[in-house]
């Protein structure tokens, strides 16, 4: 067992974990933060995307011990109280989700995307979300959602 200390959504969490424990399972099963989902086991789908030290990362591809000392933000940590993050609002406004399973990962990747490029073109959004699968929406409303959020952020 190994001790990890990870700041998750602003709160420091310390635990004894198996060295092989994936970060996503640490979040879901040790901290009950079940908004981060598991959609594959090969790092393709991006449903498990969180921010590690401000950068999007697939939490199924990181051991909890590798995140020791990091700051992690999950979908639960994005809204400020009752105020949704612009991307959360954008996804709601533009019907950017159906079943909602890929949505937390899609939003976390989009947060990183807009940090890097506050006013992306449609093609840049599509390329930027290359690591996130959605089987429901055909992505068009997701693109609209990111554009909507970009406009909110800049206004």
């Amino acid at each position, binding site marked *: 067992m190994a001790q990890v200390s990870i700041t998750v959504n602003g709160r420091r969490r310390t635990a004894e974990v198996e060295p092989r424990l994936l970060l996503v399972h640490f979040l879901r099963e040790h901290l*009950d933060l079940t908004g981060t989902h598991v959609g594959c086991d090969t790092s393709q789908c991006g449903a498990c995307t969180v921010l590690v030290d401000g950068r999007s990362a697939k939490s199924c591809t990181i051991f909890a011990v590798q995140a020791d000392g990091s700051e992690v933000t999950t979908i639960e940590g994005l809204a400020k109280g009752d105020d949704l993050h612009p991307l959360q609002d954008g996804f709601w406004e533009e019907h950017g989700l159906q079943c909602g399973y890929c949505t937390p990962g899609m939003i976390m990747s989009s947060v990183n995307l807009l940090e890097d490029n506050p006013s992306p073109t449609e093609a840049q959004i599509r390329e930027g979300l290359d690591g996130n699968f959605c089987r429901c929406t055909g992505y068009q409303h997701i693109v609209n959602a990111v554009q909507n959020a970009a406009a909110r952020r800049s206004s």
Partner: protein
Amino acid sequence: MSAAPVLPKLVGERVKRREDPRLVQGHGTYVDDVKIFGLRHAAFKRSDVAHGRIRSIDTGAAEAMDGVEAVFTGTQIAEFLDPMPIGTPFPSPEHRAVATDVVRYVGEPVAVVVAADRYTARDAADAIVVDYETRPAVVNPEVAMTGHPTVIHADFDNNLAVPLVPSGTGVSPDGKTVDDSVVDKAFADADVVVSQRMVNQRLAPTAMEPRGVVAHYERGKGTMTVWSSTQNPHILRTFVAKLNGMGEDEVRAIAPEVGGGFGAKINIYGEEYVVSALSKRLGLPLKWTEDRSEAFLATIHGRDIIGYVDIAATRAGKVLGLKLRLIADVGAYNMLLTAAIPTLTMLMANATYDIPAIRTTLTEVFTNKTPTDAYRGAGRPEATYFVERGMDMLARRLDMDPAELRRRNFIPADRFPYKTQMGAVYDSGDYAKALDRALGNAGWQELQRERDAARAEGRLVGLGLAMYVEVCGLGPSASLPTGGWEHSQVTVERDGRISATTGASPHGQGNETTFAQMLADQFGVPFEHVRIHHGDTGVVKQGIGTFGSRSQAVGGTALHLAGAKVREKMAKFAAALLEAHEEDLVFEDGRISVQGSPDTGKSFAEVAAYAYVPVPLPAGLSPGLSEEAFFEPANNTYPFGCHISMVEIDRDTGELALLRLVAVDDAGNLINPLIVEGQIHGGLAQGIGQAMIEEVRYGGDGQPLTGSFMDYAIPRAADLPRFELDATVTPTPVNPLGAKGVGEAGTLGSTPCIVSAAVDALSGFGVTHVDMMLRPEKLWQIIHGGQA
């Protein structure tokens, strides 16, 4: 004078979804999020051979692990769990949830572990050692149907799950007598016949949430609660109760948030039976969560049908006859609806055309592959693909515009309801209208000029067009062994808020929103005052579920009818309070008042309160405002549309780019166009995926070659263009809403229109057909003279 209503009418509006605030904040509860005190975890040991007899299973190492509670082999499970039932009347081989003797596909369960946590359960499953006496495997259905090199089920000669079934012109309703004379004459009279063997390849549904189940048998009460990622909790309850020897009153099935289904979560799977049976046996709550690699093996696949298509026509382009010989590879076993799915391909062979003579035949074949069953469209995309590709080949042979050929053969708009050669009764349609709209939106003639100009520059650009009609709103009970109705209960609560239940259990369709829109309008109350409950047999008294694009057409209608009953009763209470005639009352802006004098009315909440404390009780009324309705449609609905695509193939790499996709879909009346667009987008993406990049593949030894997202591609955002949608509206007479259903539409027109566009782009190379998927290697070889 009455003032204009303050509350806007919501039906037909692009209302933002009620479901989304919880989902965008990670507050949805999917089945793997369910935690119960004392919860144990199950993991399955699965066969890694495609066909073989189990010589021995050594569970010793697994049982010795810390944290392992129990290990069960198939033989042990069979002592207390009957074989899996199916939902079709076809003969079916015995199918154990966990194999006892012979395994027939890679991924078939052979043992199950119960452990304290997920990781230990997996470790223990991996530690089980199985010794197999391997047998030859067969993965090609046309080989399997010779009975060589192996017979998969002893009682099914030549691996025929369903021996040849004829249908269409000249076939008696019982299928026993077949008169080919009309069809033969059509082909004898034809100026031209096009013939092609086509493969509608095997696909993996891949809902982003894999399957999962939690079962909690409570010994003290003798009841069981089962949470499952399912499209139909009521059907799940029926089957789980039956196999556990329990009454339906003793089992509660819950579909929490369900992360996509696409037909694959209609089935009742072995894991659901085993986890519930073990929970009961061990007296413990138990969870199993499928991982993605398991899902590729153990969740049903879709499609996998070979079609031999022959179309007979005159030189002027009038189709005289169609033959469609179908060979469906159903994999190793019959699941819930497996055997019935390809019959829908036969049913829809008439497509949108007035074809006077049709002969279809269907043979279903067992192979050593994962079982197939319903996947978005379920039999209808296959029919559309075969017929539309055939029509495109005919247009090319006749050197006729593909749109013009369609137009010459449409069932005319004035001939509905129209009984097809296949026995379907199309409810309503105006196919020429959808075609014209699509041609106009695409700028068809301009596109043809663009294509020709691009070709003159040496670019490989092509155009494709496809019509579709599908069978939706399933369906009368005669067509569904589970029953084809839907149920709803609508309650006006004592405070005037509205609670409603629906048996149409959603997994992304947004019923909480669309159904609330309907009730808000029906009662003239704010949208925020209406709540829709679903997905829990403890709350929703009865139901069938969500599949076959039936939520709105069947479930929505049941809701509407239940609402109408409550409204009628509430009007009687209001009439008593207002000393007015109930037929003079209007429900508007949260008030019930006499038409034309809103100031005289009572608030909705006041009338509700009176109905629950009815002093005095009006004559003939009982207290309360809660009514239910079952709705059984008299017929299916038949939505239709036209899809047009433009593609370009890179001459150097063979890579196909989809430049444009123009869709006109007619689903009848629409409740929420925003949600409808989302449904069509998603369907298009799956159809485009099938056309371009998706295919489940097996080696000749039955080993899956597409066992993860590393090998099985689904569309990413950058693979798709911005879709150009439009709608025509031809209401159905089958239900009072006029709604036809839209969940599957996108998968129908997209595949043939893209393949036809690719063939068009490659027409300079003498190509008349290319089977899906259109992977670059295949196209490159056509361009560069190799074998495709």
